[in-house]
């Protein structure tokens, strides 16, 4: 039985459309399905099945929740990252839930259908090189 995630949902104002979203990648449809299945196995939301993947939002202009620090710190092991924004996620029909510690969010899908996974992939967009990957920083 999965754990209820509601107690780990933060009470905060949802970000505006321009807010940058960062996720370590590269993601494929297969990987997104696997990660969503792991989330589904671990958590319920208000007693219902939860399908989603983890992302980080650049909620601040500076500091640990800024895009730069997320890329340099949380994403340091990722050569490839997905950079998108809240507007793109919402336009894809994907939900946003502030879970666990700030600036972490869960991108929510209605289910684990191929259509939903594809919508998630569209929302995340293509991968790009992480300029702050640990190997790059060594020069």
């Amino acid at each position, binding site marked *: *039985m*999965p*754990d209820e995630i509601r107690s*780990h949902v933060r009470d905060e104002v949802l970000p505006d459309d321009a807010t940058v979203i960062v*996720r*370590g*990648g*590269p993601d494929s449809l297969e*990987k997104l399905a*696997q*990660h969503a299945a*792991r*989330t589904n*196995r*671990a958590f319920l939301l208000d007693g219902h099945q939860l399908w989603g*993947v*983890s*992302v*980080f939002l650049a909620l601040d202009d500076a500091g640990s929740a800024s895009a730069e620090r997320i890329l340099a710190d949380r994403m340091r*092991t*990722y*050569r*490839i990252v997905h950079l998108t924004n809240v507007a793109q996620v919402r336009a894809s029909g994907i939900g946003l839930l502030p879970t*666990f*510690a700030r600036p*972490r969010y869960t991108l929510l899908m209605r289910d684990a259908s191929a259509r939903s996974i594809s919508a998630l992939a569209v929302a995340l967009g293509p991968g790009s090189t992480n300029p702050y*990957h*640990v*190997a790059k920083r060594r020069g």
Partner: protein
Amino acid sequence: MTIIVDIAADLNDEDETGFVWTFLDEARDPSVVVPGAIIVAGDADAPAVVEVVDIVSKSAGQVVHLRILPGDIEDYAALVRRTLSAS
């Protein structure tokens, strides 16, 4: 270099502990996944060297918490090559 991880994980996943989490049954060999062990987690495209923090029994299964260690996996490979001799 082909990388085969010790345990599959989404390294973006962090729970209330602040650590990356995954399920123990996603390990290739669960016997190597013990607290304090240094293993490779993630997937072939996005691997990371991690320390096993703990294993927690939950109703959904045994959850492994992982601390991502500094450096790139190639750094650790270079370290082993540089410091270990055949003798």
